[in-house]
């Protein structure tokens, strides 16, 4: 019997959930303050007071999210006092807690920190102007959606995954419709709701079939149940229920992360939602869903990737290839036609999903899965920060012009050269220009996809995909440059935007700082993300990679004939013909 069967709940494990608990409680506090103390106050005053209170909440949550990382990477013992709950890291290096429902590993901790930081920027952005009257509800829902995102990245089980996915999206449906005095906001909310809940239903049906096929909802148990099926290398051949389950779950995830052809909701929802909510849908919800997608595909459904590493064999790799190519191409070419900044960013985020799926596919077939998955996680971080900055520009437009036309940015470079330079850098990072972080995100991901230790049969497809990605990056330059052209080459019209104010300037400047910082020093983040990617890869599963006896009690796990037995080393790389010993595939760029 596994350890969890007789185990009781260890209350020290709640230490891992402190950021989530802080945010959930703070949402309630904000709501109470709005309903109690601020009753009858003017809307701008409530916005200011509640916004500051929410910022304080995100600060507390950030501290709570930093603490586990400090304790974990602590060599000197200087931060031991932060571990107030006496949580034992040595005991569980990569633990799965709460009866295998939630993971408390490096991935969870880094993404908790990332999400709280992004939430702080979004909250700050929200204080810029009064797009709604219901400020208490607004901030509370933003907090609770973040709780959903954090638990989504932490989920190790399909029920938890589905619950948190719904927590996140249901809160976001409501936030989308918060700008009630404009027609497009409720419309966007309803569209997002209809597409989102249909995709949840599809995902759930796939989940139910997968449960029927494997008898479990835990990722690790699903992997074990599917593993023997791979023994005869038939993969999904003839397994109609399995094919249906994989396809339905891919469709569900495809809606959440907005890949073609499941993207129709995205432009409308992005355009209609208030700009800070759009920023949160485009960054928080997308990166959390993407991490969950990678966990499900690479860990639980790993045996169904493609049985012999042939791309077009039955398996999810082939579907991911098609989705990736379609998203990149359609997203970029549709963005070319947009005049509305938010709509353009929506299509560009569809294209970015396509790029990231290339990395997911590489992680699915590669012999360097940990590095490939780590490069996708790196890309997600960079993508999130550049987009937060870009949507702050959209918030600026919405505040002063009430519209999101790119032409309204005319002459911004002459009036506010500092902020315009920041926006320039953000756009260049989104294009993928060196030496900004966006370039290294793409570089690492495409390098992993082109790694020569790939199985020969999938290399050609990966090369095609990378080539398509590079062509698409060139195409994307045209529409990002349109923003720059409006800012720097056109003369200001009658009315230029009013000064940004701290609530809009801070997100733009901070996002730019992150993009430059990780552009100049990408290696620390890259190594962290590679370490974070370990638990989501099935061969390097937490029980084996750490070189300790399987804590979940599977003494006789079957290893397929193709895979060498994982050794006790922490580095789970299979001995490919040219597996690199160095963790970073590219030398540090600033040298």
């Amino acid at each position, binding site marked *: 019997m596994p350890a969890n069967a007789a185990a009781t709940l260890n209350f020290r494990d709640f230490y891992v959930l402190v950021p989530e608990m802080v945010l959930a409680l703070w949402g309630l506090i904000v709501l109470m303050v709005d309903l109690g103390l601020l009753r009858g106050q003017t809307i701008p005053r409530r916005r200011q007071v509640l916004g500051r209170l929410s910022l304080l909440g995100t600060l507390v949550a950030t501290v709570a999210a930093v603490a586990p990382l400090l304790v974990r990477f602590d060599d000197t013992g200087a931060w031991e006092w932060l571990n107030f709950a006496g949580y034992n890291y040595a005991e569980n290096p990569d633990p799965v807690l709460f009866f295998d429902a939630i993971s408390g590993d490096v991935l969870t901790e880094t993404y908790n920190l990332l999400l709280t930081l992004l939430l702080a920027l979004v909250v700050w952005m929200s204080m810029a102007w009064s797009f709604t009257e219901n400020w208490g509800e607004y901030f509370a829902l933003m907090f609770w959606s973040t709780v959903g995102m954090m638990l989504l990245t932490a989920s190790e089980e399909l029920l938890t995954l589905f619950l948190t996915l719904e927590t996140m999206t249901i809160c976001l449906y409501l936030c989308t419709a918060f700008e009630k005095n404009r027609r497009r906001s409720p419309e966007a909310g309803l569209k997002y709701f209809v597409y989102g*809940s249909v995709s949840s*239903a599809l995902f*759930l049906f796939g989940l139910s079939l997968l449960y029927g096929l494997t*008898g*479990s*909802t835990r990722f690790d148990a699903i992997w074990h149940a599917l593993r023997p099926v791979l023994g005869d290398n038939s993969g999904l051949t003839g397994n109609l229920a399995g094919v249906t389950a994989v396809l339905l779950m891919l469709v569900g995830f495809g809606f959440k992360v907005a890949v073609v052809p499941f993207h129709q909701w995205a432009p409308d929802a992005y355009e209609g939602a208030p700009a800070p909510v759009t920023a949160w849908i485009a960054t928080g919800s997308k990166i959390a869903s993407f991490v969950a997608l990678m966990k499900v595909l690479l860990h639980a459904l790993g045996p169904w990737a493609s049985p012999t590493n042939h791309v077009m064999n039955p398996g999810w790799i082939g579907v991911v290839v098609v989705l990736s190519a379609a998203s990149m191409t359609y997203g970029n070419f549709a963005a070319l036609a947009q005049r509305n900044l938010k709509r353009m960013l929506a299509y560009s985020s569809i294209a970015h999903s396509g790029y990231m799926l290339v990395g997911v596919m590489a992680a699915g077939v590669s012999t360097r899965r940990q590095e490939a998955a780590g490069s996708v996680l790196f890309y997600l971080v960079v993508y999130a920060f550049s987009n937060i900055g870009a949507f702050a520009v959209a918030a600026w437009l919405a505040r002063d012009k009430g519209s999101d036309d790119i032409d309204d940015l005319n002459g911004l470079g002459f009036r506010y050269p500092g902020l315009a330079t920041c926006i320039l850098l953000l756009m260049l990072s989104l294009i993928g220009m060196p030496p900004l972080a966006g370039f290294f995100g793409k570089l690492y991901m495409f390098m992993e996809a082109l790694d020569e230790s790939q199985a020969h049969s999938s290399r050609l497809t990966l090369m095609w995909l990378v080539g398509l990605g590079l062509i698409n990056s060139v195409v994307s330059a045209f529409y990002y440059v349109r923003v720059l052209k409006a800012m720097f080459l056109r003369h200001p019209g009658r009315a230029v935007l009013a000064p940004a104010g701290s609530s809009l300037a801070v997100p733009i400047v901070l996002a730019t700082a992150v993009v430059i910082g990780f552009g100049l020093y990408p290696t620390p983040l890259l190594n962290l993300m590679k370490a974070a990617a370990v638990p989501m890869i099935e061969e390097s599963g937490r029980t084996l990679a750490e070189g300790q006896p399987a804590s979940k009690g599977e003494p006789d796990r079957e290893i397929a004939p193709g895979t060498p037995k994982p050794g006790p080393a922490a580095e789970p790389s299979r001995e490919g013909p040219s597996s690199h010993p160095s963790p970073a595939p590219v030398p540090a760029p600033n040298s």
Partner: protein
Amino acid sequence: MSHDIPLNWFLYFAAASFSIGLMGVLLRRNAVAVLMAIEIMLNAANINLVAFWRYGTPPQGEGPLTGVMVAIFVITIAAAEVAVGIGLILLCYRRWHAADVDRFDSMSG
């Protein structure tokens, strides 16, 4: 336990109701009808879950009630989704004086 009705029947029924729900989402124009169709899809998945739980034997280390627990949580999620959905439909109804999803088309491109 005597299996009076084979598992297949449940699965066919669930697949049929799921398809009915999907067709409803795609073909019905009334937002409330779309909401009902989504509920049918969720409940089809619930039938699957409970049938698999009833007829399957849980693998080693799996709790005895997984399928039913998932179904119960799905019911609560469905309730939350209906509450939010009705709220959004009402919000749109106040603006357009219609609950027809084809009419909500102020944005496009």
